């Protein structure tokens, strides 16, 4: 086997076309953006003759700092709501017959398959001043003036709880399914109440999956673009929206590059943390 394997040097050559493409049109653009971000911006374009840290220093301007803080705050709220909802949903699903489980999971996966722009459009039909919710409430006489449900943080939160729900649900569902039911029986036999069984047995054992899903969810919330742009817009600017404006409206690429790198670091840290948690688990790690 080893002999035969080492004889086959040839196949390795087949790696090269994709490798070349990825290096030239993926890694190089990313590195070029890093390089651009260390040069000053002039009206004529990027001044490649001088180097500077100013673009990174500017990230700490009160305006940009507040955008980062807002994005992190909204993302955290979304993650907390998502986890609070995903846990009972996962608990319910694992109790069903496996055929039914597959069907219900498919419904939860459906929004993932539908284009993000279409989903945002659907939400705008529900949330806008003339939308389903405001019309129904006015029809029932509950409110006089329409509630502001989009073009603010509420719109972003609703849209992203919906859009990223399945990524928190699937790891939880997998972990709860792997849980040995005898552990629960044993705890119950020893006199634990249902609440105690949940708090002392089920929750601690599925905590790694909950955290892994939460980190992935948080990362996706931080990086989301289309949903916050359409449901929050310029009245609730998040990092990705500001990065869009800087790169495509102001055409300030060095600073736009610095914003992109800051966003990259802010999303890689939670992913790295979630991988640490996943590798710390004793059961088989769930691959994304």
């Amino acid at each position, binding site marked *: 086997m080893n002999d*035969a*394997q*080492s004889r*086959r*040097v*040839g*196949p*390795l050559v*087949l*790696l090269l*076309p*994709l*490798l070349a*493409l990825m290096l030239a*049109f*993926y890694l190089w*653009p*990313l590195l*070029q*953006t890093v390089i651009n971000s260390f040069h000053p911006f002039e009206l004529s374009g990027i001044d490649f003759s001088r180097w500077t840290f100013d673009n990174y220093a500017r990230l700490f301007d009160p305006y940009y700092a507040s955008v980062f803080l807002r994005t992190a705050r909204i993302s955290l709220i979304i993650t907390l709501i998502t986890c609070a*909802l995903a846990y009972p*949903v996962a608990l*319910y699903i694992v109790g069903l017959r496996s055929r039914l489980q597959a069907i*219900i999971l498919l*419904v939860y996966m459906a*929004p993932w*398959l*539908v*284009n*993000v*722009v*279409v*989903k945002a*459009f*659907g*939400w*705008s*039909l*529900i949330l*806008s001043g*003339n939308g389903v919710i405001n019309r129904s409430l006015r029809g029932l006489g509950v409110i006089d003036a329409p509630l502001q449900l989009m073009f603010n943080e509420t719109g972003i939160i609703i849209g992203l709880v*919906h859009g990223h729900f399945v990524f928190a649900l699937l790891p939880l569902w997998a972990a709860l399914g792997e849980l040995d039911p005898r552990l629960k029986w044993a705890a119950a036999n020893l006199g634990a109440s249902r609440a105690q069984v949940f708090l002392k047995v089920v929750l601690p054992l599925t905590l790694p999956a909950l955290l892994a899903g939460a980190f992935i969810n948080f990362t996706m919330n931080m*990086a989301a*673009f*289309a949903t916050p742009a*359409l449901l929050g817009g310029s009245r609730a600017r998040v990092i*990705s929206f500001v990065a*869009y404006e800087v*790169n*495509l409206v102001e055409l300030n690429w060095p600073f*736009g*590059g610095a*914003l*992109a790198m800051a*966003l*990259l670091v802010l*999303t*890689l840290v939670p*992913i790295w943390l979630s991988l640490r948690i996943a590798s710390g688990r004793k059961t088989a790690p769930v691959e*994304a």
Partner: protein
Amino acid sequence: MLLIVNIAMLIFMLAPLLVVVWMSTTPTQLFILPFTDFSLRWYSAAFAHPGFLEAFWLSVRLAFVSSLISVVLSLLASYALLRGRRVRGLELADGLFMSPLIVPAVVFGIAMLQFINLIGLYNTFASLVLAHVIIVTPFSIRTLQSSLRALPVELEWAAENLGASRLTVLLRIVLPVCARGIMAAFLLAFLISFSEVTVTIFITGPGYQTLPVRIYNYLTDQVDPTVAAISTMLIVLSIVLALLLDRLGGLVNLKK
């Protein structure tokens, strides 16, 4: 209690999709709440709208070309990763191929925007193809790897012992045996490319607006049932592609 949460969440999950479908069949310009009448006029309006039709064909061409390139290159690369000699740094290459899943689309979009302007590819079909090949490649690689792993290496040895060249082995053994996996990889790549929004918004010029980008731009200034009709057709298309994929076993890889 759990049941109530679950039912509420299922409604929450489906609500925006159902509202879009519902609006696409209202006869009036405005969306009237008690739903009474049914009309398909917005569907004919959608087909009569030259901008959307053009954008649809651009999206199809783009998804087809980039999925094809990605699947061919990923098939070669996955085969190399699986059967090639173990050399150091191979994990790095695999990590590089998978990393577009981790790098946020906004970041890659900005990098690609700055890069294609620097090399003079702005507002070209080629720049969109390059970006989309990179975006869909992690999906092709994962699907193809699981398909290739199921292929017994003895089959290839037997063919080689009987005098087949390496190319013949690839074309006559690997391709036919993994045909389903290759088809699944292509469909998944097509689906991902067809619905890609963020990177495309950053890099696209006025001459090349894909369907999702056109819808995005349309939504930023107006809303009428024509978009609802187009969106409904997109929902149906996604469901059809997803069911096909499920048949080919492609979605199983994602659920893991």
